[in-house]
């Protein structure tokens, strides 16, 4: 199964890819040794959004399903964690339970919503509209829950003020005190999860499942006539991608012990689309790297002006569609390859001419 980490569905299979990959991972692992506590916490913050991007890459890039619902599931995951963590007490194993249940909740909602849309033959732009509308409805609903009567058990939803006071993720640890996932431990947790999810998705995409997903994207009728139940594959893809968004939501809420409807509605709902479209949705690595770069840029700009940062995001989306529909990161990879390939072809042509001529 590990052989499937490399395959035709994902870019980068040779040593030219994996050596730099190992170097980057090594750098990420030693980063906390050199960086201050704030930077480490900030890096964990930037990285936790990448799961949502990878999920959208799976659903949209590989599955061909344009879902605007990533922040819907982000919200379900985040608010779900908050509600569960507050109600279950927030000690050790209960937060892990909260994490698991919140992600499952986003998966369950995705399964129901996806079932109605996919079995109802809703596709294309309409799928996008229904997922966007669902997202906006949730955001609107959460926005008007400010009153004290809006609570789930002990957890107040709190409208636009946001839900807070939930415990961060923690697990029982040696020596009595639980290990709280904040700061450096959270950073390592996020990096670890990223590695697992990234490699796991590579294996999934290069497996039988991944090939069918791509076939369904390209020609659903042909895929069905090759004996695949197209609807089941589309639903599975949608649920997995949505659960990854839920994971981002849980980690976000744990990171800041805080979540608001602003994470669900506009303009937040546009962000995953921008990251993934700009990076190049058709490849997992391009999306992962590109999304991180866009997130980092966005944060750097937001410090000065959030409006300017969001304006840039809009401009990037527009520029991508008009100039590089396959994504800028992928475009750059192709450019780099193009620089090397003509030289190889020239060399091959010369060799052939030398052999054949007389």
């Amino acid at each position, binding site marked *: 199964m590990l052989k499937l980490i490399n395959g035709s569905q994902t870019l980068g299979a040779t040593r030219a890819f994996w050596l730099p990959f190992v170097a980057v991972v090594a750098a990420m692992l030693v980063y906390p040794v050199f960086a201050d506590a704030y930077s480490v916490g900030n890096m964990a913050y930037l990285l936790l959004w990448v799961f949502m991007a990878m999920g959208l890459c799976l659903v949209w890039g590989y599955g061909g399903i344009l879902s605007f619902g990533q922040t819907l599931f982000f919200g379900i995951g985040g608010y779900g964690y908050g509600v569960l963590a507050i109600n279950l007490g927030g000690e050790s194993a209960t937060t892990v339970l909260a994490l698991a249940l919140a992600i499952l909740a986003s998966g369950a909602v995705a399964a129901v919503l996806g079932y109605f849309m996919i079995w109802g033959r809703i596709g294309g732009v309409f799928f996008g509209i229904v997922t966007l509308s669902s997202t906006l409805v949730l955001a609107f609903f959460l926005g008007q829950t400010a009153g004290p009567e809006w609570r789930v058990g002990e957890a107040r939803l709190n409208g636009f003020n946001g839900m807070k006071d939930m415990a961060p993720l923690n697990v029982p640890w040696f020596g009595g005190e639980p290990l709280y996932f904040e700061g450096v431990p959270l950073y390592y947790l996020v990096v670890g999860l990223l590695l697992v999810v990234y490699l796991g998705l590579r294996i999934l995409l290069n497996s039988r499942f991944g090939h069918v997903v791509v076939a369904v994207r390209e020609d659903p009728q042909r895929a069905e006539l090759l004996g695949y139940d197209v609807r089941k594959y589309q639903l599975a893809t949608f649920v997995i991608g949505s659960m990854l968004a839920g994971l981002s939501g849980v980690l976000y809420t744990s990171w800041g012990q805080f979540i608001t409807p602003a994470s669900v509605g506009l303009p937040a709902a546009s962000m995953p*689309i921008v990251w993934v479209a700009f990076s190049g949705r058709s490849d997992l690595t391009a999306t992962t790297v590109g999304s991180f770069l866009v997130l980092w840029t966005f944060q750097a700009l937001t410090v000065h002006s959030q409006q300017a940062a969001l*304006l840039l995001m809009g401009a990037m989306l*527009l520029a991508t569609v008009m100039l590089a529909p396959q994504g800028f990161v992928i475009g750059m990879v192709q450019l780099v390859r193009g620089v090397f390939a003509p030289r190889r072809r020239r060399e091959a042509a010369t060799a052939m001419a030398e052999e054949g001529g007389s």
Partner: protein
Amino acid sequence: MFAEIFSFAYQFADVFAFLILAAAGLAIVFGMMGVINMAHGEFIMCGAYVTVGLVHAGLPLVLAQALGTLAAGVVGVAVEWTIVRKLYKRPLDSLLATWGLSLIVTQGMLLIFGSSLAGIGTPQGSFSIGAYTFSTYRLVLFGCALAVLAVIYLVFMRTRFGIHARATMQNASIAQATGVRVGRVYALSFGLGAALAGFCGAMYAPTMTLMPTMGAAFLIESFVTVVVGGANVLLGTAPAGVVLAVVRTALNGWGGQIIGQIGMLLAVIVVIRLLPEGLSGWLARRTR
């Protein structure tokens, strides 16, 4: 008794007006070109801002509203010419491009104008029936919605542009082969759609707080109405408005705004499931 009935009818008319005015522009663009204009809310905002700006500058309300509508239409033609035109065979890409544009415009407006602009009051005027008092302006809005439907009908059925437009909607390449300037039809249609959006903004401006993000308040309703109505504006938008207004009014009365919105969302899912081409597709089939 009469007062209760009138009150319900009034609420229905209010929701119906909102749906029609919000959706008409989007329906034309979608029906004509298959483009989902995600910047639709921004054309609404444009109409509203121009109207309010002109009123603050001293113009009478009605004139300001007319100019607000016109401004949105002009901007629409410009947007079509620079962006949308290049993306006709790519419906998902035009959706994304207009979404990018929407972000640029709302954030740009926030940077330039700040988060809110001083509004203008709703024109005074109310009347009572029984124990209820109703605002006259909202009846004006209902009248405007009916007027919009009438105008669309007249334009598409009685003008030369309308004939060309309907031909293009049916089959653009054949229309072009018979001499219809398809590019111009598209540009004018998009402009018309943008103008109708601007008209919506201009008419609702006196009733709302002005914010650069105000377009978002119309998004769900306009999308839902267009999807339920289907691609044929003439046949689908009005029935969709009626059906959804009934659903919304009933649910609003029963559970409040949020139940109303969820109800609309469910209505969309059900309609797409049963009638994939919306009401207009279903009606067209029945009348064949």
